[in-house]
């Protein structure tokens, strides 16, 4: 009798060990996939990186030279996307967390945000083409690309900002309101400053996405090849993600330009993951320093 009970117990713990093993393994697979990918990119890309690669434009129909115009273009597009997505996203989040009462309209807005977050990047590209490039006649330009990317990252920023605003203790607001401060001033002077670090780190993850997206800028901003740097918001630009795609699939000599491709991939990954990593480090530091 006791023996069967012990056996049953052993079996239960054996199942637990087996399950934990599988769970650990799946976590390990994911970590290994990321590690392997980064290792491969760094090992193959590091050889192509030089000062000239980063500061010179491509030459010999993009088979030699650097990627400077693509780096500059990506920075322009990303800054443009932030300029549009960040204010819109933060203000939306302020309304949703500080002002809105639960109700049907809020529900519709939230569903709208969720659906917007799920719109495929290539559909954003079509939207940018159909609306900004064609309907508003911006042409393929930094402006059209930035607007498209800005709206693409807006849901991410709203999510991050909502979370950061909700994390501000209710007592902060109550103390301020009790002193006779108006709701708007409380939001602006008390709640927003307290939430700002959280909003920024959360948003940075969205910003990394803007820098790395390809499909939304293919028809709205990206040029196959230009040597001159953009002079106005209505110019086309080269961009790192699109440059990788072009070199790897449609370049004049795909095999020969392989080192350039690896180098460009490394620069893009370093840029995007560098941005993300900064956000992650600051956030974990902030969590430890938390004052409330």
């Amino acid at each position, binding site marked *: 009798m006791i023996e069967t009970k012990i056996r049953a117990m052993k079996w239960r713990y054996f199942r*637990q060990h087996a*399950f934990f093993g599988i*769970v*650990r393994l799946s*976590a390990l*697979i*994911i*970590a290994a996939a*990321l590690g392997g*990918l980064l290792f491969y*990119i760094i090992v193959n890309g590091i050889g192509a990186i030089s000062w000239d690669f980063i500061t010179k434009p491509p030459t010999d129909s993009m088979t030699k030279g650097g990627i400077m115009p693509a780096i500059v273009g990506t920075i322009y597009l990303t800054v443009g996307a932030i300029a549009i997505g960040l204010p819109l996203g933060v203000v*939306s989040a302020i*309304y949703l967390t500080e*002002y*809105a009462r639960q109700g049907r309209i809020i529900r*519709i*807005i939230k*569903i709208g945000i*969720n*659906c*917007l*977050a*799920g*719109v*495929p990047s*290539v*559909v954003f*590209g*079509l*939207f940018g*083409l*159909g609306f900004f490039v*064609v*309907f508003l006649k911006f042409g393929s330009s930094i402006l059209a690309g930035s607007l498209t990317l800005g*709206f693409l990252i*807006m*849901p991410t920023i*709203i999510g991050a900002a909502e979370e950061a605003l909700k994390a501000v203790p209710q007592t902060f607001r109550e103390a301020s309101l009790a002193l006779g401060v*108006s709701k*708007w001033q409380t939001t602006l002077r008390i709640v927003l400053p307290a939430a700002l670090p959280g909003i920024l780190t959360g948003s940075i*993850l969205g910003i*990394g*996405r803007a*820098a*790395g*997206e*390809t*499909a939304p800028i293919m*028809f709205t901003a990206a040029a196959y090849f230009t040597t001159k740097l953009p002079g106005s918001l209505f110019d086309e630009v080269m961009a790192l*993600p*699109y440059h*990788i*795609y072009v070199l*790897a*699939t449609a370049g004049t000599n795909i095999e020969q330009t*392989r080192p350039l491709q690896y180098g460009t*991939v490394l620069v893009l*990954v370093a840029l*995007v993951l560098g941005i993300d990593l900064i956000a*992650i480090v600051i956030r974990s530091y902030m969590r430890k320093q938390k004052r409330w």
Partner: protein
Amino acid sequence: MTRRIKENIIKYVLFLFALVSVLVLALIVFSLFREGLPIFQKVSLRDFLLGMEWYPTSEPPLFGIFPLIVGSFIVTFFSTLIAVPLGVLSAIYIAEIAPGSIKEILKSLIELLAGIPSVVLGFFGMIVVAPWLQETFDLPTGLNIINASVILAIMAIPTISSISEDALYAVSREFKEASYALGATKFETITRVIMPSALSGISTAVILGMSRAIGETMVVLMVAGGAAAIPESLFDSVRPMPASIAAEMGEAPYRGLHYQALFATGIVLFVLTLIFNLIADYVSHKFRQSGSATL
């Protein structure tokens, strides 16, 4: 009095800003329909959706996107098959099992994985996975369903993992404690108590992961091979809808039939992901998690 008026004005201005998301969604619909609907004057909806031949540049052109829809669903299905176990199990590991330091590191790793640009993953699939598949299985091409599914799975894992993790955290502590108090092992508690309570959240995670996979463009553009035909095996190439749009839009003459057909494909893709997202939203609201902590 003036202060109240001012506060009210601020409130309505903020409300207008909050409407921007809905407005953008409406503008997306407007632009897609404006550029895409004219195709249906030439091709019937039935022929467009169920037509078996996609020869947009032949004479006369044929615009049947059925093979593209099939391609999209196949790669989505297989990537989900790979990503769901890995995503959900890693979420269980993070939320229930891993010690503090490993947990933080793993969460950061998954966030970084989510941050890797899709074009980079597509590039990796093209020049590492494809040649390997081609040599190992002696195939005519390594750019096929298997390759695209694996790479798409890598993209979908962070979505599935992080949303599942939130759902697991939301299971109230009383449930777990009650289960332990009854003598259940940790494994039994996880599978019989925590998982069922978190099921709606995990389902949401899976649906959103699928939505991510079906809409992902660069990976299928670079890795799926691009054959607009119904595949017969997992080693065949396919041409999912996003790949077709991205590859052909550059060459399609402005406001020509081909251009309109690509926008119409965009409508189909948009509607599909919209359905996925609405289902996810419905599931997470209808089947709210029970217990003191709700998702």
